[in-house]
Each structure stands twice: as C-alpha cells, then as structure tokens.
C-alpha cells in the first residue's frame, strides 16, 4: 500500500477494513468451505455498495472513484481483503466490469453493468488464452477450452478471448449459453473457486466486445489489472501473517525467554520484514504504473509477479516454521493464508512466465 493516502482514500480504506472485520473474519472463510459458491452473495453485495465493484467504471455508467485513478483506490480494498482473506470474486468482476465499461456496447452496458455494480451478478474473465473462432455469416462459431477460470461456475457472464482470423477478439457470453459447459474444480484455496469451461457455441455479433480482431491492448490491460489486484491481495495477506508472527514470538516463552529475544529468530523476522517491504514497494509501483498508463506498465507488472509470488509463499512458510507445530494444524489460520498466496502465485501467470516476458524484453529474442 502507498505510505501516503489522500483523505478520501484513507476513509475508503478504513471503511473497508471495518466492514471486513465485521463481516469477513476468517471464521467466515472456514464456514464457506463447503458452500459451492465459496462466498456469501449478501456480503458481496454489501461490499459492492461500498465501492468494491464500481471503482474501475466511469461515473457516467454508474461507477466512480475517490482519486484520479480508480485502480489506485481498488488496490486498497484488495489489500484489506488479503489481510482477512475475504471471499469473493474481486478480480474477475472488476476486470470484466472495466472491460465492458470501456469497450462494450450500450446494450452490453445496460445488460451487464448494473448487476456487477450492485453485486447481484458475477462475471468471470476467461483470460488471454484464446478459443478458436470461425465466421458463419454474421455469427461466430466458438470452440475450445478455458482452463482454471476464477469464479467460472459462479459467473452469470463469461468474458472469453477468441481468435478471429488470428486476431484477438473478446466475446461476452451469458453463462447459460447453449454449448457452454462449466465444470467446477476442487482446489487448494478453501473458498476461491475455479472451473474449466468448454465452449462449443455459436454467438451473434451482439456478443462481441469492441471491434472484432482489435482486443489485443484491452486484453493486455485486463491482465495487468488482474495482476495488480492479486499482488495487492497477496501483500495484504503477507502483512497480516507477519503481524501475527511478531505477536506470537513476543507472547511465547521458551527457556525462560520470549522467542522474539533469540537472535536467530530476530534475524529471520528482519529478513521477512525486508521482503515484505520490498513486496509492498513493487506492488505499489505496479498499481501506479497501470493506473497511470505508464509505458513501462507491462515491465513493472511482470516484475511484481516475478517478485511477489515466491516471496509470499516463502514468507508465509517461514512464519509457519516460526510458529512451530501449531502452524501446521488445521485449527490455526496460517494455512488459509498459505493457500491463498500459493494460489495467487500461480494464477494470472506464474512467476516463471512473467520472468520469460522480462527476458524477452531484455534480450530482444525468444527462448
């Protein structure tokens, strides 16, 4: 998180924090484990009312934000959600809302945005990997599989990338479109749900978002938004785990001394603090770069993904070690955090995939 926030941002962050403390304790995460949706729609709607789904949508379409760039506000919510592991499809809903608001038709605005903004509907972003598309008159015939789609089985709308004449195109499908088969998956996180989506469907021109073959930059931007929100969430989770561990080491005594007085452990906490701050720094830089549309946004986002994923899992694993045996029990919340940061590390691009993008940029050649 930025160290200095505007008054409005500060108010938004503290309102969000209070709301989450009241409605989304980690006990709620545990209670949702066996719920198919993995989140509580009523709580989600309350979060939406606070701004959780409208910050990337212009005011004219029912959205609005507190500062110059909605993304700078939204990362505050993402980080707070990470601190408590709040359940809900923050990334997919915001990515799709942004895409529809900025590239969708008026009909799509009216049909999709109100539900996403008030929290009554959910959307899934099927990612940049395309399905095949062939033209059939005015229609497009889609076929292919979208793997591991966040909130895929909870979504009312699916934003799918398709290649039309080898050019990237975005298509918005109602989830109940004939020929769309959604298979819910089990996974590592107790409440974050993923699904595989098999598509074999014919859609009319009204399903296309923006112009056919013209969606490359929009898709890249959506990927950036997803990574920025995910990194903010991860850093929030790291922050909380670090805090818990500091408290624990201060409270727990061994051999007549608090654990926190042992230099071997002090140095571990110092290293963890350093890595925590470095993750804050690059997450903030990525959020700023994408919000402001900087020319180096892609590079900074890649750097954030390369850096934060492995350091997050390492920090949480180290904090588990510092907790001792209690850290590997179901009862303690640490594993909930570990699940989340491990899932975040590997979604919206693995660190290795993002590193490869940086290498391409550095060397000017492909592997």
């Amino acid at each position, binding site marked *: 998180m930025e160290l200095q926030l505007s008054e409005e941002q500060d108010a938004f962050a503290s309102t969000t924090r209070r709301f989450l403390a009241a409605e989304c304790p980690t006990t709620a995460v545990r209670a949702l484990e066996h719920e198919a949706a993995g989140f509580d729609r009523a709580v989600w709607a309350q979060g939406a009312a606070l701004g959780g789904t409208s910050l990337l949508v212009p005011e004219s379409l029912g959205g609005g934000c507190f500062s110059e760039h909605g993304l700078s506000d939204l990362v505050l919510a993402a980080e707070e959600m990470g601190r408590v592991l709040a359940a809900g499809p923050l990334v997919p809903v915001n990515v799709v809302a942004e895409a529809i608001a900025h590239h969708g038709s008026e009909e799509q605005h009216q049909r999709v945005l109100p539900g996403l903004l008030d929290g009554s509907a959910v959307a899934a972003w099927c990612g940049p990997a395309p399905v095949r598309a062939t033209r059939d008159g005015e229609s497009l015939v889609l076929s292919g599989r979208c793997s591991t789609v966040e909130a895929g089985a909870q979504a009312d709308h699916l934003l799918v990338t398709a290649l039309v004449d080898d050019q990237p195109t975005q298509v918005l499908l109602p989830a109940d479109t004939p020929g769309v088969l959604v298979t819910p998956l089990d996974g590592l996180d107790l409440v974050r749900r993923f699904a595989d989506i098999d598509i074999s469907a014919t859609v009319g021109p009204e399903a296309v978002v923006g112009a056919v073959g013209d969606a490359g930059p929009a898709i890249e931007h959506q990927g950036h938004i997803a990574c920025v929100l995910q990194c903010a969430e991860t850093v929030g989770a790291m922050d909380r785990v670090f805090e818990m561990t500091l408290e624990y080491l201060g409270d727990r005594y061994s051999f007549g001394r608090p654990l926190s007085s042992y230099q071997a452990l002090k140095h571990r906490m110092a290293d963890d603090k350093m890595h925590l701050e470095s993750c804050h720094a690059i997450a903030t830089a990525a959020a700023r770069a994408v919000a402001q549309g900087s020319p180096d946004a892609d590079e900074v986002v890649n*750097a954030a993904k390369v850096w934060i994923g492995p350091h997050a899992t390492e920090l949480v694993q180290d904090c588990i070690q510092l907790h001792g045996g209690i850290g590997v029990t179901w009862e303690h919340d640490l594993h909930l955090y570990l699940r989340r940061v491990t899932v975040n590390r590997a979604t919206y691009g693995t660190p290795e995939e993002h590193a490869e993008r940086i290498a391409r940029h550095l060397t000017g050649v492909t592997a």
Partner: protein
Amino acid sequence: MIETRATDDMEPVEDFRARARAFLEATMPPLGDGWNDRSDERRDRERELQALLWQGGFAGICFPKEYGGLGLSQEHQRAFTAESTPYDMPFSLNVPTLGILAATLVEFGTHDQKLRYLPGILRGEELWVQFLSEPSGGSDLAGCLTRADRDGDVFMLNGSKIWSSAAYASDYAMCLARTNWDVPKHRGLTMFIMKIHQPGVTVEQIRQVDGTLEFCQEFFDDVQIPASDVVGEIDDGWTVASRLLVHERLAVGGGSPYTSGASFGHDGSGTDTTILDAAQEAGTTRDPHVRQLLAEAHVRQMVGGQLVKRVTEGMASGALPPPAGSVIKLFGATNVMRRSEIGLEIAGAGVVAWPADSPGVAGDLGRASLSRQGVSLGGGSNEIQRNIIRERLLGRPREAAADRDIPYRDVRRGGSAS
C-alpha cells in the same frame, strides 16, 4: 529540515528537471566504465565533476541556501538524479563526503562550522571521511578506545581508527573519541572534526582482496583539535554517530537527499547490463534457465529501486522511522550477493582465465565477486542491520549486552585493550 515535496515558493520540479537536463547534456561527460575506479586520478576527476555542478548551479540541491546549497526539495533532487544517470557524476564524493559527512554536519554543525565547511565541500574542494571503526571494535562502534583529553580550548587525541575509505586522499574526517571513561560507553563519546593532514596523524593504506588500496588505518599521536571543532555536544557524540549511521545507510542504499546524482554509477533503475552482456558474450540468451536468471537479476534492480523510493519517502514524511534505512541497506547488500551469484552462473568458465589484460565481462564478474561481501560489511554488517530492523523498527527486545550501564573503564575488553 528538507522538504519532501516541492513547495510553492520553489522552482516547479518539471522546470528544474528541464534545466537540469539541458545543463547535464551540455556539461557533463557520459558515464563510462571507469566510474567505479578507485584511483587517485579518478578521485581528482570527481572533484572536478562536483566543481562543474557547482559552477552550473546544480550542487547541493537539498543543502540550505545560506551554506551554498539550493534549498530545494527531495523531489527536485530525485528529478536531477533521474536525469543524471547517463552522465559521469562525483560518486565517491556522494558517498561518503556529501551523503554522510556533509549531511551530518547540516544536522549537528554550528552555524560557524557550516559556514566554514559546507561551501568548500559543495565546490568539490574537500573530501571528508568518517573515523568510527577501531581495530579492536568490529561492529561495536560505541566501544571506542581512541581517547580525547581536554586541555583548555584544545582536545588531544590518541588512538587508532580503521576502515576509512580513501582517508589518505581526503581532507577532513569526523572522528569519534572517548572523552569520559567514568560513564557507560554510549555516554562518554564526542564527535570531532579532524583535519587529516596535520602533525600526529599517520595514515596507512590497507591492501584489499581486489588489489585496491582504498581503505586506511590511521594512528593518532597527540593530535590537537580545537574545541570549536566538536560536532554536537561534548560526551553526546553517540547521538551524532547514530545519525551519521542513518545517513550512511541511506546514502549507501541510494536514498540520500544530499548526493549529486545517484550514489553509484548504476542505480536501481535497472541500467546495469553487465549480467546481460555476459549472457550475450556466452551466447546463452536463448537458454531458458539463463533467461530466468536474467529476469531475476533485472527484477532485483527494479524492486531495489522501488524499495529505496518507498523507504526514503516514508522516512521523509515520517510514515517510517529512521531505522527503516536499514531495510534499504540490507536489501542492497543481499541484492549484490545474489546478483553476483547470478553473474557467476551466467559467466560460467569465463571467470577462470582470459587473454592478457582482457578479462572481458565474464572476468570482470569473477573479479567483482571476490569482494562482494564488502557491501555486506561496510556501513554496518548485514547482521547488525538485522538487529536494527528487529529491535528498532519492529520493537524490542534488544540483544543482551554485558557492557550496559557500567562505567566504560570497567568494561571487559579483548587483547588489544590498553
């Protein structure tokens, strides 16, 4: 007090940036491979570079106007630094003279001391070093044995200091000495301004792993220092030294507001291409493993740059306390170690041998790796930085110490104690 952000009575940052860009392009030579050269010729050259900045009106951006500075904000300084990265800058003046010693003088010096010393520093005429570490002391700086005995308006110093960079080629030092042996160790120290080239001071150069002779040891035999050259209060030198160390961590970490451009020739902006060059030389840029390493090396520089920005801004605004500087220092040092390791891996067998006088990029990486721990030792070892982070940034408990609250003359010392 330095302003973090530009205020209305200052030149707008973007105007300043544009003037700086034009000046730098017209005046300063491009950054070459020799920026890290530790020779005397290079040091003299850096004095000239600082003089060019002074003549052009770009020296001491954040120094007070009344002592020759520009009195501008850190935003101005950062804008200048960003513009200056393609050019050769006075790096060895930045650390330690400007970023550490002049910074400490701004904070603790009397009006007369600042008037007397700061303009000369900003003109590039005077190099300063710190005389803190002692042969017997290691990381325990406050366990200082160099003594200063008062005789009227003069202090007489006797003892020895070590690990001072280029003291032989410098003009002044800030020297920590014990003025009171009857109080616990932190409370009997005083900081002095010492002219280096004067009777009673002997400077010996120490040969380092990489063959350089930059570090020195000094011996003091009845060195006379006027009482007017005490920095801060008598017996309160630890306060001054502690702040000096904060400035040092900032300067070494690349976050000092007092430097003329970046602290080093390659800052955190990711412009250091040595490792990439080595991969290109080895013809391995398409190797998937090498590509992961190249990306990591690059990302480390980017993250380092962002961390410096975050911590220095946080410290300036008060959102982070001064010990946060240790986070930058530790990150910088561990980054050097890891990047060196990546360099060795990519350079491969190229580090072993080379045609006469042509080590190439691989040879350079190999040789640089020999002294890489220096960054993790100088300015407070990584272990000390970790103590500081845990104890002062994250809160107690402090390490147990056997010398706390007892008169220093009664503290047990090692074999070299007098």
